[in-house]
């Protein structure tokens, strides 16, 4: 029996005017139903593009090589048309920018129910009741009234809830959440995280949670993957990793996290070596640093 998701030897590179940039350099990852994997790493470590590649959403200058198997089916190299069957139905995705995630000219309800009429072929009324129930499921109060509201009448947190509703509406087997709480303030963030966690427990779907926030990763995941310069440098069960980090970069990340210390004086900045020389993990002799991490 094949795993729900099997990524092996995944490489993603972008051809730019200044030469080739490798965003992901040989990632292996497997997960099953019910797994909650947090992908953490600094900006530019390749975690977002890794998430997008699962849906075939890496655009033109980007080249994906290696293998991504979803339920035993190869995703890399599929045509747009074949990918469409996987998007939404097999793998759903929630994006970072919730404020712009909904089309401003349609009501919330019509955008939600459209998914059901188009993708599942439901009738209008069936789609509507389905949309209302999913709005309730993601915690929108008085859902049937708010069905006719436009996105601008919703707050940021509520819009992100709707985006989550859209992503899970078709009952995907995997939900990819790409920093879904970064644009929101902390109280709203907690609500969204709880929602995602609850939904996962309810549906048993696999969750890939991309974030740069270690505290968030700890709350939501059962397993953590630390990415650095396009590679996975450490992987393990969440609590174990937090208690006994092995890789120097993970140690440095944890040492830099405010939750671990009593006073700001105890904070350890990330050593310069990790900031200026991201190619240290790779030994294939890339002469120029492929990703420059600033600050």
């Amino acid at each position: 029996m094949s795993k729900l998701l099997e990524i092996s030897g995944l490489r993603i590179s972008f051809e730019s005017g200044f030469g080739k940039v490798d965003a992901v350099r040989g990632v292996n990852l497997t997960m099953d139903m019910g797994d909650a994997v947090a992908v953490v790493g600094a900006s530019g470590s390749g975690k977002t593009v890794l998430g997008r590649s699962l849906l075939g959403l890496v655009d033109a200058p980007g080249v994906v090589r290696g293998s991504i198997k979803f339920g035993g089916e190869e995703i890399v190299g599929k045509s747009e048309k074949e990918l469409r069957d996987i998007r939404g139905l097999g793998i759903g995705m929630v994006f970072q920018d919730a404020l712009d995630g909904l089309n401003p000219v349609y009501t919330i309800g019509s955008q939600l129910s459209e998914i059901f009429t188009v993708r599942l072929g439901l009738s209008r009324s069936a789609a509507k009741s389905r949309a209302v129930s999913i709005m309730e499921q993601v915690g929108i109060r008085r859902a049937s009234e708010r069905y006719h509201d436009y996105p601008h009448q919703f707050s940021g947190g509520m819009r992100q809830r709707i985006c989550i509703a859209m992503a899970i509406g078709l009952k995907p087997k995997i939900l990819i959440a790409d920093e879904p709480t970064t644009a929101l303030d902390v109280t709203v963030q907690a609500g969204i995280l709880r929602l995602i966690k609850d939904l996962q427990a309810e549906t048993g779907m696999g969750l890939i949670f991309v974030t740069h926030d270690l505290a968030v990763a700890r709350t939501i995941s059962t397993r953590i993957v630390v990415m650095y310069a396009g590679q996975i440098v450490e992987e393990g069960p969440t609590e174990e990793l937090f208690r006994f980090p092995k890789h120097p970069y993970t140690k440095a990340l944890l040492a830099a996290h405010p939750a671990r210390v009593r006073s700001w004086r105890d904070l350890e900045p990330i050593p310069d070596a990790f900031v200026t020389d991201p190619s240290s993990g790779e030994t294939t002799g890339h002469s120029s640093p492929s990703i420059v991490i600033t600050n």
Partner: protein
Amino acid sequence: MVLQSTPIVASSRITRWRASPKWQMFTSSPLAVASTAWLIFVVVLAFVVAPLVVDQANHQTIAMRFYAPFRLDKGFEFFLGADSLGRPIMLQLIVGARTSVLIAIFAVSISAATGYAVGVVSGYFGGWVDNILLRLADIIHTVPSLLMALVVLFILQPSIFNLIIVLGITRIPVYLRTSRTQTMEVRERMFVEVSKAIGASNWRIITRDIAPLVFPTIRTLAMLEVSAVILSAASLTFLGIGLQRPDVDWGMMVSDGRAYLKSAWFVAVFPGIVIVLTALSANILSNWLRAVEDPAQSTLFFRAKKKKGAAEE
């Protein structure tokens, strides 16, 4: 308490949306009502009244040459005076309305529809097709549209149909560029990405996500182009390859009257006023529509009206 007040709020929300708020917004905006009324008036004149008065309008009475306006002693038809051949200006305006409105509607529709469709599609897909289309638009744009119209109309016969086609084609690049640029902007927005991630097809993204956001701009542009097209038709007529008498349009009347501006101002001024009024009405209406159709703006608009109403009570 809370339980009791909730249903009241709810029911008022629902009635608010059921009572066709757009119609209410329309009737509460005098400018929108006035410009719609003017446009309807012109269309009725052009297509209902004009056929009845064609003969009278073209009847020349040399004795009535440059008959001054605002006098009723020669009959109502001479209320706006008479032109250089003694034709009643008022009736000429009515007959001219038919041609002007026809040219404006069709030329603008042809160019707006083509430019809009091609612009959105090429802006969305990009690539070499986009590049070729853009260069093509550049070419059309660089050749002065008047010159192109001149050549084409010289080769073909100058007729209303050819005039519409020529004006329609030469105006395409304006819409194409605008819709292409805006599409490229909308394409990058998050909700397009979200649609893609739930498996929407390109066609669906173009028609449902992108085109509706580009449309208001194109419509506003089209309304602005109405006057430009009427005036282009006029300049072609002025050069002698546009309309030929006995056909008449407003632009032709303005250019006819130009020669007599010192001695008989009204020959050029009345059709001029009519062109301005029509173009202005089209602009006001498109502006109003844009405000109403934008959900964010329309709610604000409605709220402001409501508050005002509440204050009056």
